[in-house]
Each structure stands twice: as C-alpha cells, then as structure tokens.
C-alpha cells in the first residue's frame, strides 16, 4: 500500500479509529495485523520474508541470552540470514551480471541465469532495523524480548516499514511495549506533518520529478539541460524522501508513537560532514554505529580513518541499490568527507560571517548536485559523457531549455527553500511549530495552522502532478 493513495487514507482512518477503542495488548495485535495487511497488499508473498526475518531475529536474540557462550554464533545467524535475504533479492542479479561481464572480458561467453528477481519493497529498511535489534542484544545494550508479537510490531510497524526512518530497537521497542495514550497536541502536530508531507510529495516531488525524468531520458543532453535536470532531481529526491518521513512520523503520532527525524534541511549544509548530519539521518547513524565505529572509527591513525570512512560510504552507496553508480556515489561522498576533513576547510562554524556561510552552502550544494548526478545516472558511460559536457558551444535553444527547466523546478521548490531557511535562521523544529504562530493564543494559532493545511490541500488538488510517481526510496 502506498501513502499517496486513497486506499491508504481509508485504511489509516479505520485502523486509527479502531486502535483507540482497544486495550494495549489488543492495540499491538491490531498494529501487527494492519502492518502485515499494509505490506502484503500488493504482493502477499513478501510477508514470508518479513515474518522469517522476525522469527530468526527473535530466536537469535533469545539464544544469545539463553546460551551466552554462543552469543557470537547467534549473531552470525541473524546477520547471515538478514544479509542473505537482502543479498539474494537485491544483489543476486547484479552479481551474476558482473560475473558474466567479467568472464566475457576473458573471452568466455556465458549465459548467466537471469532470475529477474522482484525486489521486495522496504527489505533494506526492515532488515537493517531487525539487525540493529540483534546487534544491540549481542552487545548487551538491550535485553532479548520474550514477546514475539512486540518484536514483530517493532519490525513491521507500518508507518515507516517501506522507506524508514530506520528506528533503533532501543528507541521504538519500549514504545511498542508501553501503554500509549491519545494526546491531542501530538495528533495535531502529526496532522500538520502529514499535510506537509503530502504537499511535498504530490506538489513538489512529483512535479519536479517529471522534469528530472525527462532530462535523464534524453540520449543527447547538453550542459544546461543536464544540470537543470540534476537540480530537479535534487529537489525531487529530498521532497520525496522527506515527505515519506513526514507522513510516517505524522501517522505514528496518531497512533501514539514518536519516530526519529530523518532530515534536517540538508541543502543548507556547509560541508560534507554537515550534509551527512542532515541527510537520511537514521541510515547514516546506523552505518556510523554498526559499521564505522566497529571498524575502528577515527582511532588508529589517519589512514585507518580514511579506510573506515571510505568503506562505510561504499557500503552505504551499495545499500541504495545493486548498481555501480550507487557505489560510485557512496565513494564520492566518502572522498569528499576525507578531503574536506584533511584540508580542514569548510567546517561549519557559527562564528563565521554571513557571506562565508552562504558561499559554503552554495559550494556544498554544487558538490551535492554532482553526487546526485552519479546517483541518478545508472549507466557509467552516461556518467562519463555527462561529466564531459561543456557549458560552451551550446545552442541557444538548449541554453534556454536548460534555463526554463531550472526555473520551473525552482518555482516548485520555493516552499522547501522557505521552510529550510526559516528553520535554519530560527533553528526551530520544522513545521511542528509553524513560523507565524509561535506567539499566538491557541485558537488563532490553530486557525492559522488550519489555514496553512487548507492551502496545502488546495494546492494538492489543483497543482498535483498528473504523473503520479512512486516514492523514490521504495526501490531501495
């Protein structure tokens, strides 16, 4: 089931209405059933995977506690089963393709088995979430849960199941286990998040996504058209992914849960390190805690640190998809981080003057755009061609077309920039405390927020794209 469908809205309203009539244990049963209906809505067989992952992780964690001397073996059981599933469904075809290609270069023509495996949506998200549970139990930071239902709800909790944010067991599991109560203030802020999320997805992401798709479908882009398309994609992926997070967080609040934030206005980052503190926060902290730090982090000298950063980013790139362009994208960001740290420049500092900050933000945004080109362009030959495009000698039509596409994408992105700038300047927590209402009495504040939501709803009705696109992160 997808968030931007009427099916989901009816589903969510029905689940929420029933949910608050039930006692705590029954609420969890309902959440479990609702999550499995949500996930199995299109392909019921996907449920076998998530159920298998849940049962194995449940048993592995219980085993760790029951037989501490075999803790490591149980951890391996969890890691191998989760990565095995992920590897098979996500990377098997990629692996075979590359083996066949490699053999081909040695003159060995081999027909590899083309399994055309369908990637179960969200598998990268829930396997990582499930593994965080077993790893934390292994480290002794969490006790193994006896209640399978609670663990199943934690892994399959439908608001964030298919595109995150990835939640830590230590954060979400206690919420599953404790009694929840309906807090009108949380529901109100959740509702605002949902409206803002739908607006970002349907009005911003889908409209600029059409521009990006158009440009990246061209066989002969020129410099200005290409970079207008990259800009559009940058807006699309942020609006799209953060929209999903907002809707996930908003719907969770209606169910009495709190999910962690996943974005902090990343296009206002001033350095690569700053960018990764703001972009897909739940994934980057997962990699930090479960890959980078176990590898040694910054301990062990400069070269070890460089190696650890590059390995972490390479894996992070590969997590996004079975394709070399994602690997390249990950490595690119790793190299950026290493270079900027090594040069000790562009390090964010609140004491710097306004102009330097603006230049840092602009510079980082341009570097981010190069990264998005690597991310979006799936063929390496096309990446090379794109990076060789020159701004000179371009026809007037192509220059104007590039300028037109850029302006069109920019118009749609204005609300995003305004929100980011407003929050950045005030450092207030996003739209949850909307700009114009901070000092107002409750009734006018609600009226103002209602008016803003109404505008978002009206914009969705009359400005939503005619081409409905899937959430980008569904494919990961």
């Amino acid at each position, binding site marked *: 089931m997808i968030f931007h469908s009427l099916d989901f809205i009816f589903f969510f309203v029905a689940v929420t209405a029933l949910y608050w009539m039930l006692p705590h244990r029954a609420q969890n049963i309902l959440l479990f059933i609702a999550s499995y209906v949500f996930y199995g809505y299109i392909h019921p067989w996907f449920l076998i995977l998530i159920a298998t992952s849940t049962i194995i992780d449940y048993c592995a964690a219980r085993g760790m506690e029951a037989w501490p001397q075999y803790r490591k073996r149980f951890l391996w059981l969890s890691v191998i089963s989760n990565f095995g599933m992920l590897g098979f469904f996500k990377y098997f075809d990629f692996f075979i393709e590359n083996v066949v290609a490699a053999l081909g270069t040695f003159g060995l023509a081999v027909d590899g088995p083309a399994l055309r495996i369908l990637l179960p949506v969200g598998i990268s998200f829930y396997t990582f979430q499930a593994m965080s549970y077993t790893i934390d139990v292994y480290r002794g930071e969490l006790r193994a849960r006896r209640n399978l239902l609670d663990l199943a709800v934690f892994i399959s909790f439908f608001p964030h199941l298919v595109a995150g944010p990835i939640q830590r067991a230590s954060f979400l599991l206690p919420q599953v286990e404790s009694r929840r109560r309906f807090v009108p203030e949380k529901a109100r802020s959740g509702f605002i998040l949902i409206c803002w999320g739908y607006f970002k997805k349907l009005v911003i992401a889908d409209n600029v996504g059409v521009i990006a798709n158009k440009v990246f479908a061209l*066989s002969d882009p020129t410099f200005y058209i290409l970079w207008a398309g990259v800009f559009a994609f940058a807006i699309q992926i942020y609006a799209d992914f953060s929209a999903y997070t907002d809707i996930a967080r908003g719907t969770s609040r209606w169910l009495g849960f709190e999910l962690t934030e996943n974005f902090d206005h990343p296009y206002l980052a001033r350095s690569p390190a700053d960018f990764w503190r703001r972009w897909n926060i739940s994934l980057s902290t997962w990699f930090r805690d479960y890959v980078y730090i176990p590898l040694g982090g910054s301990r062990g000298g400069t070269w070890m640190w460089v190696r650890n950063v590059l390995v972490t980013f390479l894996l992070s790139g590969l997590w996004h998809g079975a394709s070399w362009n994602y690997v390249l994208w990950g490595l690119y960001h790793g190299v950026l981080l290493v270079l900027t740290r090594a040069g000790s420049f562009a390090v964010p500092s609140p004491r710097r003057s306004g102009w330097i900050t603006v230049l840092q933000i602009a510079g980082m945004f341009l570097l981010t755009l190069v990264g998005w080109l690597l991310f979006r362009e799936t063929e390496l030959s096309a990446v090379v061609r794109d990076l060789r495009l020159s701004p000179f000698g371009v026809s007037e*039509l192509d220059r104007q077309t590039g300028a037109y596409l850029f302006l069109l994408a920019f118009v749609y992105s204005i609300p995003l920039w305004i929100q980011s700038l407003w929050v950045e300047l005030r450092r207030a927590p996003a739209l949850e405390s909307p700009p114009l209402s901070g000092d107002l009495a409750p009734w006018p504040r609600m009226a103002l927020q209602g008016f803003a939501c109404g505008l978002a709803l009206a914009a969705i*009705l009359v400005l939503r794209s005619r081409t409905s696109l899937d959430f980008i992160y569904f494919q990961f």
Partner: protein
Amino acid sequence: MTLIVVMLGVPVVIPAINAWMAGPSLPPTYLPALEGPRARAAFQSTRLSELRYLQPGYVVIGDSMAGTRLDERRLGELSGTAVAPLLQPGSGSAFWYLALKNWVIASGIKPRMVFVFFRDTNLTDLMFRLDPQFRWALDLTALEREEELNALVAKRIRPFHRAHVFLDRYMAVDAVRRRLEPAVAEWPAERLIASRRRRTEFMSLMNERLGFDHLRPMTAADIQIGDAPDFDFERDVDDSVLPLMLRDAKQAGLTLCFVRVQRRPTAHRPPPQSPELEAYVAALRAYVTERGGIFHDDTGDPALTIDMYEDGDHLARHARRLYTENLYNRLRTHFQ
C-alpha cells in the same frame, strides 16, 4: 477540530475562484464514470473524409508497435491496394475501439481487412492508457457520448476513484487545474523571452527537443510498456472493448485481424512467456477466431530476430520493410 474545519474550508474557495474567473462552462465528458467535465480536443472528423477519399483495402490501427513495424507503402505494393494507417503512439484498446467505430465504420468504407496491433494483454486491459495524459488522444476519436465505453469503464474503476470524480465534478478542480497549469508552465518562459510569438515558438521547439526522437532507446521502449497485469482472459474479456470491436466489425461486414507483436527477444530465443500468459493468448486466439476474426501471433517467429529491434519492443527503421514482407507472407492466404 478548529484546525480541521478551517483546513477543509479553504479548498471550498476553489469553485468560487473558478466561478469568479468566469470561464466558459465545460461540456460533459464522454466518460463520466472516469472524470468530471473538462475541455476536450475535438473529434477528428477529417479522418472520415480522408478514408472515404482513399478507399483503402487495408486499415491498420495501433500504437507505436504498429508504427515501427508496418511499412504501409510496402504493404500497398504487395497487396496491390491502398493501406490506411490510423496510428496513435501511446494509445490503448479504448482508442483502437473508438478508431474502428467512429472512423473506419462511420466512414462507410469496406476494407478487406482491419489490422489491430497489440501486445500481450492490451486488448482486454481496458484501463491501459486511459490515464489523464493519454486522454487528449482519445478525444480525437470520441463522440460526445460513448455510452458503451463509459459503461465498461464504470465496471473497471475502483470505488475510491469516485472521490476523484466527485472532486472534479463539484469542486471544479479540473477547471482550475487547466487554468493554473499553463500559467505555471508559461511563467519561466515569460522570464526568459519577452515576445509572445517567440515564446510560443520556443515552447514548441523545446517540446520537440525533449521529445520522443531524443530519448534513449531503452527509455523510449520502457515508456511504451505498461505494467504487466495478471493474466486471466475469462475474467477480463467481458469488461473489455474486444467483444464490442468484434461485434461492430461483424455488423459492418469487416474482418478484423489482431496481430500480437513479439516483445524483444533475448539473445537467440523468443521472449520468455509464463504459462499463464500462454494460456491467456490461447484463450484470446480461440475467442477471436470463434467470432470471425483473424488472430496472428508474431511471438516465436524465427524471422523476427533481435537485430531488427531498435530498443525494447520497437523495430528499427531498416526492419520495417522486412517485417511487412514477413507479415504479408505469413498471412498470404488472407490477403488473397
């Protein structure tokens, strides 16, 4: 509560704005089950006079599958009679049905055969390419009322879609969208080019620059492919336009020849087909032939090799002549 009441109150101004802008009232649509009133492209009646003038021996209906395969001039040479292509890239079975009914049959011509090119389940997948972006093409073939098509669509749409129709009908959403969208699209052009004439020229050139001829081959192919639906011929056939096409053709004394095109082969083999798809095609073949139609399946034809394909399912320009001659030979008995 205040928040929700105020929020729901805001969109109510949409129809008021629409009324204030005093646009001309929109005509009812020919697919009221699917959409509210909207401005539509006019029915292309010139097709009727063209067909009457040409008096073709053969008519070809289809999308780019037919357009990139059939060389109508070569078919004319082989068959010794004129061939009329009624092709629309990005069209689906609803378009093909209306083209047959409102152009071919309405023109009163008596071609020996009417070819309809399709892929896999297109003929029983009524909703294939009925999305808003394809409807302007459908407008070209549709009369003011299309009761039978609308009744079929009504059976196919999901209950939740009625909410969309409600919004279109009572909130004038579509009318406002039709004013807003060109304004938003025009705004960047106005910033770049002052002259209205040059702006119009630029927009047209830009659309061409970003158009089909400039797409990467595989992208061009993918755009043409809809999501593969599940295969159940018996379930879908009565809610599709196929029975109407066969009935109308029979009443008009026309012979329909349905040509299932072969998808891109893999290296040296025909494209893989699931047992469900094979069963579906067998049922489709039986259905068509029992009702007086001709069914031809390109799939597995050894003459259609991978080097003839430009991308996914489209043939390269150089292969059109070869394909046409091959089709003529395969259906030679029907051409004589």
